[in-house]
C-alpha cells in the first residue's frame, strides 16, 4: 500500500510504497498504476511506476495536488490477479566483442567468468519497470554474489542490445545510449519498436524473463 503521498514539484504526486524492493511491493505499485490508468482521471497526463514508487504527473491547468491526492487516497485498487505475466526467453551472445565488462566483473566479484554466466543464465528475472530510455526493462533479482556497482565513469555510448548488470538488477539497452552498467553480452532481439504504437515494448512490468546463450553465428544469422 502507499505509505505516503507528497508533491514532486507543483504538477506531480510522489507516491511512496516504502524503501524495500521486493516483487510484492512492486506488484502493488503496478496494481495502482493499472487501476489509475483505467480510471482516466481528468488532468492526469503521465504515470511512472518504479520499484517502490509511483509518480503521477498532471496538467496544472486541470487539477492540482490536493484535489488529485484526495482522489488517489480514496481509490479502490483492483485486487484480482488480472495482471498477466508474459514469459520471454532472450537470446544473448557473450563473445568478447559484446561482453565489454566481463573482465572487470571478474575482478569486482572475485568470480570466474564461467561462474558469473552460470549463475546469470539459470535465473528467472522479474520485470520491475521500464524506462530511463524507451523500453529499457529493469530486471531482478540477481543472486547476491553477482551484485556489483556501476562503472566509476559511465560510458558515453553503450551499444544497442547490450545486457548490463548493476546491484540486484539486469537491464537491456534498447538503443545506443550513455550508461554505466556492467555489460556482459548483447541480444540481436529488438526490445523496443517505435513503429508498434500500441505495444512498443517487448517486455513490460510484471513479465518474467530468462536468458539463453547463443553463438556468434546464431547472433549474426538471427535476422535472416
Amino acid at each position, binding site marked *: 500500500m502507499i505509505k505516503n503521498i507528497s*508533491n*514532486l*514539484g507543483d504538477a506531480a504526486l510522489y507516491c511512496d510504497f516504502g524503501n524495500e524492493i521486493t516483487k510484492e511491493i512492486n506488484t502493488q505499485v503496478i496494481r495502482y498504476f493499472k487501476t489509475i490508468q483505467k480510471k482516466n482521471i481528468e488532468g492526469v497526463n503521465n504515470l511512472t511506476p518504479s520499484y*517502490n514508487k509511483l509518480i503521477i*504527473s498532471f496538467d496544472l491547468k486541470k487539477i492540482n495536488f490536493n484535489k488529485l491526492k484526495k482522489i488517489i487516497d480514496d481509490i479502490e485498487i483492483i485486487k484480482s490477479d488480472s495482471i498477466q505475466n508474459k514469459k520471454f526467453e532472450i537470446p544473448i551472445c557473450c563473445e568478447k566483442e559484446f561482453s565489454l565488462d566481463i573482465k572487470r566483473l571478474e575482478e569486482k566479484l572475485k568470480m570466474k567468468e564461467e561462474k558469473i554466466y552460470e549463475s546469470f543464465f539459470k535465473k528467472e528475472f522479474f520485470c520491475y519497470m521500464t*524506462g*530511463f530510455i524507451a523500453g529499457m526493462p529493469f530486471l531482478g533479482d540477481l543472486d547476491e554474489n553477482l551484485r556489483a556497482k556501476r562503472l566509476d565513469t559511465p560510458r558515453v555510448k553503450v551499444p544497442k542490445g547490450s545486457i548490463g548488470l548493476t546491484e540486484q538488477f539486469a537491464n537491456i539497452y*534498447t538503443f545506443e545510449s550513455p550508461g554505466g552498467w556492467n555489460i556482459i553480452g548483447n541480444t540481436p532481439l529488438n526490445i523496443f519498436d517505435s513503429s508498434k504504437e500500441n505495444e*512498443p515494448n517487448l517486455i513490460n512490468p510484471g513479465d518474467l524473463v530468462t536468458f539463453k546463450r547463443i553463438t556468434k553465428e546464431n547472433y549474426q544469422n538471427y535476422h535472416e
Partner: protein
Amino acid sequence: MNKNYFEILRAGINSTFQDLGRNNLYHIGIPFSGAMDNRNYLLANKLTGNDNNNPVIEFAYQGPHLKYHGNAINVAITGDVSFKIKKGNNLIDGECYQSFILENNDELDIISTNKSVYGYLAISGQFDLKLQWSSCSTNIKAKIGSNNGEKLSVNQKINIKEINQNLVNKKLNYINTKIENIRVLKGTNFDYFSEESKKLFFGNEFKVSKLSDRMGMRLEGKKIENIVDTNIRSEGLIKGVIQVPADGNPIIMLSDHGTIGGYPKIGVVISADYDKLVQLTPGSTIKFQEIDLNSAETLFKLYDLETQNLISQI
C-alpha cells in the same frame, strides 16, 4: 509531387518539429518532449491562424536558412530572434511576433536567437509529417517523432500539405523578459544534503554549462554536498526536477529527459518558470529561490492567464 515546400539551404544547429508533446508514455520510457518554450510555441501558432497543437519548427541558437517554393504562405517567428527575408534582390530585416507572407523563391534566413536559446517558426498551414503517438515532436536521442526522429538536415525538403486560404497578417506587441531567479519547490531528497549545502543551493549563483540540451541543463557552481547517499533507487522523473549526482553539480531535467533516474532530487522548478528557464543560455547565471506549493500554483495560474491574454490580443 508536393508543390509547396521549403528547401533547406542551411539546417541550423538543432532544428526539429515540435508540438504540445506526448502524454501517457512515461511508463514505457518515452518523455513528454514538445516545444521547450510553450508560450512562444502557442504564440507562433496563433499568429499564423492555427489551433494550438499544430506542428512548428523549433530551432536553437542558429536557425535554418530556407528557400520557399509554392503558393503564397503566411509565416511567423517567435522568441528573441534575428532573421532576414529575401524577396528577389531585397533583403528585409524580419520582426518577431509579426506574420509575413512568403512567395515562390523567397528565402528566410534565421540567423540566430539573441541571448536566448529557442525560437519558433510557424506557417499558416500544415507541414506534411508522419506523427508518432499523435505527436510530431522529435526526440533525436530516442529517434522518435517526425522526420524519422532526426533533426532537419541540409538539402532536405520540408513538404507542406495544406495552406490556409485566408492570409491575414497578424501582430503582437510583446517582448520576452528574462529572469535569473528561478523559483523552486523542495525536492523529495532535500534532506540528503548538508545544512550548508541547502543554504548554498538557495543562496549562491550557478552558471549554466555548455553541456545543456533538450534533455537537461547542467549547472556549475559551488559543489553541493550529499551527506546521505549519492544514489537513490531509480524512480520516475518529471521535467523541472533538479538532480544532484555525486560530483555535486545540479542537473535540471528538461523536456526530452530520461524517464527514470537514480540521483537525489534537491528541488523542482515551478511550472510558471519553466518557459523562462529553458531560454537561459550557457554562461548565464541562475539563482534558486524557495517557494511553497500554494504560491507555485497561484504563480502558474497568473502565468497561464498572461499567456491566454497575449493569445487573445492576436
